[in-house]
């Protein structure tokens, strides 16, 4: 079994090479627009490739929208942005049926959610009702209006942003909803030198127009299929299980990683390994995606070390590589 898989993996050396080149290309292109965030760009692309959704938690103005637009541009995908407000209704997101006088029938007008990449800006400003409309669409990859089901485009990728600071009139996503995001990232402020470059240089938004698509959606889906075929050694699965077990058994956490969390961790690591051009997943890739995949799913026990320090880092430092 393992040998057979190994053979397929080796047979696709060309594909691996292509994937590695593509990953580098995306990093380079997007990196022109967003300076100094190579890790985040790579993780965001990995998340997209894995078919998961991304939650960016950061203060306004650090380039969340720019990242989403840049990704859409280099991947040749359609892009829509939804600004969430407190008076928003589900129909404002998914669309509604409108009666057409001439045809004398109802016609579905798709909402902004019908795009490959959807930026749900400040998702915590809207009511849970509007939030759940989007989250349902994320989960099902389709929306249902008046009994009619409308498939969303493939690939479908949501980047939601939320302000981490508690502000009046916001509704932070509960844990059960957080679990639906494959990754959570923070962008953070640019480094001093890069910020200077940013201040001196032209408006980055103008650069967006110069970005050329490097892959189409069909190529993206082929890569996703290739990622599923990557080799997983027993040693690596031992490591993943040790990590998961630690989050469940350690006294640091009230809530450990769910089985879905563990699956997401492996899938994200596969995609990152593919972008690195590896025929199998290395522990480095698990470590690289762990904080983004697990960080928002762990609930530290109040008063424990994990409540103060970065919990994902604590886990990685406590679990030996088998």
């Amino acid at each position, binding site marked *: 079994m*393992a*040998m057979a*898989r*190994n053979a397929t*993996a*080796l047979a696709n050396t060309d594909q691996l090479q292509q994937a590695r080149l593509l990953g580098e290309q995306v990093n380079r292109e997007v990196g022109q627009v967003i300076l100094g965030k190579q890790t985040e760009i790579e993780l965001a692309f990995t998340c997209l490739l894995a078919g998961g959704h991304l939650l960016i938690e950061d203060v306004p103005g650090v380039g969340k929208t720019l990242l989403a637009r840049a990704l859409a541009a280099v991947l040749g995908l359609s892009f829509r942005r939804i600004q969430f407000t407190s008076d928003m209704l589900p129909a404002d997101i998914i669309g509604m049926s409108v009666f057409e006088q001439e045809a004398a029938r109802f016609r579905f007008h798709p909402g902004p959610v019908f795009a490959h990449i959807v930026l749900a800006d400040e998702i915590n400003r809207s009511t849970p009702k509007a939030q759940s409309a989007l989250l349902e669409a994320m989960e099902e990859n389709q929306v249902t209006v008046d009994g009619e089901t409308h498939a969303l485009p493939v690939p479908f990728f949501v980047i939601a942003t939320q302000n981490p600071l508690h502000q009046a009139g916001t509704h932070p996503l509960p844990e059960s909803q957080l679990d639906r995001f494959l990754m959570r990232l923070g962008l953070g402020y640019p480094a001093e030198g890069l910020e200077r470059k940013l201040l001196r240089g032209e408006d980055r938004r103008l650069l967006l127009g110069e970005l050329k698509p490097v892959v189409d959606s069909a190529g993206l889906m082929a890569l996703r299929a290739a990622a599923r075929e990557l*080799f997983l*050694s027993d*040693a*690596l699965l031992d490591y993943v299980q040790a990590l998961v077990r630690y989050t469940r058994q350690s006294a640091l956490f009230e809530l450990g990683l769910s089985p879905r969390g563990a699956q997401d961790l492996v899938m994200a690591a596969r995609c990152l390994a593919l972008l690195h051009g*590896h*025929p*199998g*997943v*290395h*522990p*480095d890739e698990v*470590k690289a995606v762990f904080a983004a995949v697990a960080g928002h799913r762990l609930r530290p026990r109040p008063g424990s070390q994990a409540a103060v320090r970065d919990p994902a880092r604590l886990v*990685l*430092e*406590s*679990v*030996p*590589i088998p």
Partner: protein
Amino acid sequence: MKARQLQGWRAPGTQGPEQSSVAQLLWLLLLVLIVSTPHLRTLPAWVSGIMLVAAVWRLGAAWNRWPLPGRIVRGTLTLASALAVGFTWRQISGLEAGSALLVLMLALKLLETHSARDRALVVLIAWFVLFAAFLREQSLGGVPLLAAGVLVGTLALLQAARRRQAIPPATGLLLTTRLLAHAVPLALALFLLFPRLPAPLWALPSGGHNGRTGLSSQMSPGDITSLALSDAPAFRVRFEGPPPERAQLYWRGPVLESFDGRRWRTLPDAGRKHQHAVPLRQLPAGARVHKYEIVLEPHHQRWLLPLETPLGWDVADASLSASRELLSTRPIAARSAWRGRSATLPRFREARAPEAATLAVNASRNPRSLALAGEMRAAAGSDRAYLRNILGMFRQQAFYYTLEPPALGDEPVDDFLFRTRSGFCEHYASAFALLARAAGIPARVVTGYQGGEMNPLADYLIVRQSDAHAWTEVWLDGYWERYDPTAAVAPERVDAGMAAALPGSVGADLPLLGSSPWFGRVAFGWDALNAQWDRWVLAFGPEQQNALLGRLGFSSPSLRDLALVCAVTASTILLLFTWLTLRDRAREQDPLEQSWQLLCQRLSRLSRPRKPEETPGEYSAMVIAARPELAGPLTSLTALYLRLRYEGVPSRTEILRFRRLVRQLRLPPANARG
């Protein structure tokens, strides 16, 4: 797996002072309780009191932070305990005093259990106390406590060495059981093969065992007013072939030939003309010969108690005394087994004339009995008729069999024959022998056991202390003939046993025999188990060892051969375990992993050891950052390792290649910084 369970285990004494956890203490206390139980049953109450105080004090210190005694208090307590032992027993060695001292020191050691070393010491002392219990109790009944002590002791030792939290009890028990199971083959080999010496290296101090059993070298029936019945086993017998009838089961013990009118005594061989008798050579036609094996309980006397009349025995240094007592040279101090051959004969030929003592009558005592003897002998006409008449008198006149006879005065036989007329075997045997002697017939009293009880669950006979008996032998026409006057008064005693001979109320006093049949069955089952234990474990001596080795092909091995066989077997077992352990470890770590560990180990000298959570890529990047000159070979080696380990199933040649590359890697000396 094994290594993981033992993580956190540290050799005792390798760590600084630290407090014992409550769980560790509770295990120690449980151990102390188990090992001291066999001793505390016989030691005075103040010993238990001191133990209780020490245990409560230590627990209070652990739970409520009571202060533990300082050095001066501990020293005073130790000295006081030793003095108390000295005053109580007038010595501080010997079984009782020694075990009391040991138990007290164990209790006091509890008061200074701070470090892992202290805790380990408590466990070791506890084991010593446990082994000392062997000096008191070797029966099967003591085995569960002993096993519990070994189990809890091992577990407590594991716990004692723990640094932080205790092992959970279930895990600890499992681990202990596995550890002990590993020791079983070695223990078995040493038990079977360790050279057994024919005589013990040391003698057990016999604290007051003498005369406790039914055997004695003297008897004076008049002094006994109540005979306590004990159902403790005296010995067990296994017959080859069908056993004789119950009425023929006379187990010959001390033969009492000297009589002063009140007290019967044995006549020592010293000072006799003939010091030894020889076993019978010619048997009368129709005599049945029985072969049997006897397992004697220790009675601290020399009598081997053969079935009458002994023909042969396998005890090398045993001899037949002039009065045909089968004697070993040493007192029977431990449970021991021997095989013998006997013929059940009512009389046997004795070529030598009886000693003069067997005719001696103290003329100043028992005058009425002597007079009665004269009258009866004259009336009877012959010796045989005379003796028959005496038995008839016992049978027909108002003589009673009882275990609680009235006390007899200065003329015991007169008192018995003419006043009280009730007594047990000793009374009848004594009176009968005197009457015979008074008529000029040599006579003596033989004591021993009569009867026994077949264990229905196993094929052997139990003879108990309550089967102790006394009968007479008279010398007629060159034969010693057995006369059992008790049988004339209470034939059931001989035909069915003591319980049958007594009225119901007295019979119920026999602890086991008189109770319900179900209980009797359980008692017999337990006795059968005990007998197996004795036969196969306790009685395993030089003969059995030789027999076993003989079956393995070593006939009559010398002590040196035995030591050699023992050493070779033990080393083989140890080597086997070592090999199994090493093989397990090698299997746990595949060669690829081993080579990688080797690489990390070599690199650690250049920078620092790999942290367990560091990935291969992270570690090699760190090393390269510190020693850039290694970038080339290290990058390719790490990439190769990652490929083999994480990117598919590696072939054996690839793994060997990686190993070769790791070994061939040239590293700069640690101090030369590039």
